[in-house]
């Protein structure tokens, strides 16, 4: 009712005790294309849907490597996400320089949250319009955090953000109890299934999604399109028969890879990596 009167700047409270600008910023996250994350005891997987604005343009990079042991997936204003990733990378490099050891994920996430909070209490700033799923490994194990534009952060076993993330969240809610002991490959398959839910009907192909993994003995890296396509083929067949068969999948994977042609070529626009 009074929403429009108290939403002009972020330093104005509403009578109900809400900061509307911050809530609008969280809306921006919901408008972005979906990003999901899930973790086991030893690995964390991030995935996102890559929606290009038009057929002519490339899609935006939504998953960033922050350090060998930390990666982040974003949803919302990609530009804000890029800037925050640069901040996170810097913090990791500086910490490593001083202490010769990797920055614990929990610390980074708090620093990020404090940075976001500043923008909710300055009249000349605006909140960051991006939600971040921070995946990382440190001495205390595998972690997945969600950082809000509000400056709050939460730790999750599995989570999804962005548009049509509710479908992915529903799937994850069914699966999350079994995730802790999942193998790395099962975790990636679950991530792909969750992404499929977020696509709602559209065929899942490696050209419209990105998957990244970090785990014990495995530094953070984004899986290449061929690997992702092979895994997609593996579990889409699983619906009809028990377990992924190796040979038919390799053939199907190559077919699909040939179809995508140039998009699997690593030499193409850096945005595709």
């Amino acid at each position, binding site marked *: 009712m009074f929403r429009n009167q108290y939403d002009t700047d972020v330093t104005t409270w509403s009578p109900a005790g809400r900061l509307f600008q911050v809530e609008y910023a969280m809306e921006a996250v919901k408008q972005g294309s979906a990003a999901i994350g899930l973790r086991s005891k030893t690995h964390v997987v991030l995935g996102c849907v890559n929606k290009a604005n038009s057929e002519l343009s490339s899609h935006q990079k939504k998953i960033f490597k922050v350090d060998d042991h930390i990666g982040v997936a974003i949803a919302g204003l990609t530009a804000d996400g890029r800037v925050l990733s640069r901040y996170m990378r810097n913090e990791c490099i*500086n910490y490593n320089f001083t202490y010769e050891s990797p920055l614990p994920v929990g610390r980074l996430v708090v620093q990020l949250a404090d940075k976001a909070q500043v923008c909710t209490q300055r009249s000349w700033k605006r909140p960051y319009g991006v939600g971040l799923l921070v995946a990382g490994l440190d001495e205390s194990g595998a972690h997945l955090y969600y950082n809000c534009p509000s400056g709050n952060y939460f730790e999750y076993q599995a989570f999804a953000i962005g548009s049509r993330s509710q479908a992915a969240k529903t799937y994850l809610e069914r699966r999350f109890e079994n995730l802790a002991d999942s193998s790395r490959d099962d975790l990636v398959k679950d991530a792909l299934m969750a992404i499929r839910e977020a696509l709602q009907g559209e065929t899942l192909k490696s050209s419209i999604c990105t998957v990244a993994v970090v785990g014990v003995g495995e530094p953070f890296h984004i899986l290449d399109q061929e690997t992702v396509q092979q895994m997609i083929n593996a579990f889409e067949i699983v619906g009809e028969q028990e377990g992924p068969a190796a040979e038919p999948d390799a053939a199907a994977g190559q077919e699909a890879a040939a179809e995508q042609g140039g998009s699997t070529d690593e030499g193409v626009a850096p945005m595709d*990596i």
Partner: protein
Amino acid sequence: MPKEQANWSPYDNNGGSCVAVAGADYCVIAADTRMSTGYNILTRDYSKICKLADKCVMASSGFQADVKALQKHLAARHLIYQHQHNKQMSCPAMAQLLSNTLYYKRFFPYYSFNVLGGLDNEGKGCVFTYDAVGSYEKVGYSCQGSGSTLIMPFLDNQLKSPSPLLLPAQDAVTPLAEAEAIDLIKTVFASASERDIYTGDKLEIVVINADGIRREYMDLRKD
């Protein structure tokens, strides 16, 4: 009244020698592993060689605390580069970065005498030699450190690098094969260890070629 001098210096010299030789498709970087202060040995097993990028290795003699700080600084800058460009820094790029980093502290220098070695973008060996404040040059071979006055004339005699003042510009790369270059380096360090008290204990040799990076060791005189 004569001006009073400080009786404390922020610098120390930990001695040692470094050599690098560039070939057509390889680069050899070597340094001894002795770390000393004054007439004492601090350790016989300290590496002066640091891998900065996939195809780029630096050997530094001088004040090892400054060397360590310099190495950490360059490693951090390399990480930033990788995040921004999605690839490793090339050796010539790292060479320029090292020069700029050294000059940045022109008025409180890194007491670090460096040789940078690696493969350039075409896979040819390249060696860059520096002074403490970043003046650098691409050469076919070079040496720095306490034994450099003993080693350099011998390398000049054996490797005959064309003068950079000559026209037309000639290749600064030696005609030696990889095995011959390694042999030459072993000879050179064995000789330097005889007369330079700060060079000895063990020789660490790093070879970069198309197959990657490998490391070799050789014993030197321990006296």
